[in-house]
């Protein structure tokens, strides 16, 4: 049982870390704001989601698990909003130029 949990954690967290890595590389290498944003949101949403998913089996109590999930939801909300704001600012900057 414990082994299965640890396996889930290992796989999910590694996958999450991979998405973070990919997102970071994208952020550094992509040419313009919108594509960079694309890379960033992948890291934020999927990467963090997978990390949280991986940590859930390790949570000591239901309360801790709920906290983990709400962290992910809040990050999702903030990430979505901010990336849209950045995208809009980038578009406006392009049209005014």
């Amino acid at each position, binding site marked *: 049982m414990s082994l299965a949990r640890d396996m889930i954690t290992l796989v999910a967290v590694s996958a999450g870390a991979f998405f973070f890595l990919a997102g970071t590389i994208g952020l550094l290498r992509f040419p313009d704001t919108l594509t960079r944003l694309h890379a960033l949101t992948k890291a934020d949403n999927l990467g963090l989601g997978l990390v949280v998913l991986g940590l859930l089996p390790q949570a000591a109590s239901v309360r801790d698990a709920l906290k983990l999930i*709400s962290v992910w939801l809040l990050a999702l909300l903030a990430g979505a*909003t901010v990336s*849209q*704001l950045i995208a809009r600012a980038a578009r406006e900057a392009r049209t005014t130029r």
Partner: protein
Amino acid sequence: MNIASTFELMLAAVVLGLGIWTIAVHETYSAAVGFVAYGLLVALIWVRLDAVDVALTEAAISGGLGGVLLLGAAARLRHAELMVAEVPDRLTRVSAAVLSVMTAAALVGAVLWLPDSAPTLAPEVVANAWATSLTNPVTNVLMAFRAMDTMLEKVVLLLAIIGVWSLAPDTAWGGRPGPRHRADPNGVLVFLARLLPPAGIAIAVYILWTGANHPGGAFQGGAILAAMWLLAVMAGLTDTPAVGRRWLRLILVAGPALFLVVGLGGLWFGTAFLAYPTAQAKPLIVVIEVAMIQTIAATLGLLLTGAPERSAKP
């Protein structure tokens, strides 16, 4: 070398790199961005140092609100800062570098020379925790053993507000700070500003409440409340209040004033200034903290919005 210490080494290296970048980068705005990231990573160091209370404060106040403050200033000063062309000459930079390295080296030496049996007050804090019946040792130190510092620091916050307000033009004295923000009412920012504050307020209250026994407290909660309020202001959902308003000023002094009143109560009825009667210690501290979280939230928020710019009268 185990995984934990490898991680700590990497963390220190990354933070150091980020720090160097923040100091060395050409543009001021980039430096401000660098500082935000730096603040968040420093919070991680605090977690590794097993000081979660400090980590929360560092993330919320230094990295979060401090970062917003610096970013805002960098944006507003973009043009003014560019005009400064007084880069110090080579001699200055070299001697500054030498002296800074020397200082750091002396500090390293001093840290390495610290005695092996480190002195600590932790046992005494634990042994005297009965006086407040709170189990978070940091809250005990802040609210009971060193309550004077905490009270004075609230006055420091108030003075910072007075100092910032004193920079207003005479015509705007008592008026509203910062520009009136307007955002697309159907836009995503307004959406977030409507959706997030209820959750934020709940989290802030939770952090305040849990601060009695777990990491957390009025500072950390207050910083979150301030962030929620700033979000609403930036989305144009609410305007900054005129600083001459009586209710606003009452909120701004509520924390230190209640602290003083309770302290004087201890002087008058009890054993000493800022001494709590053991039976009522916990409720008294909770009441003070409830007042303090409002004061802290209002103060932090208003420190970010700056000096009054618009006259109170429309």
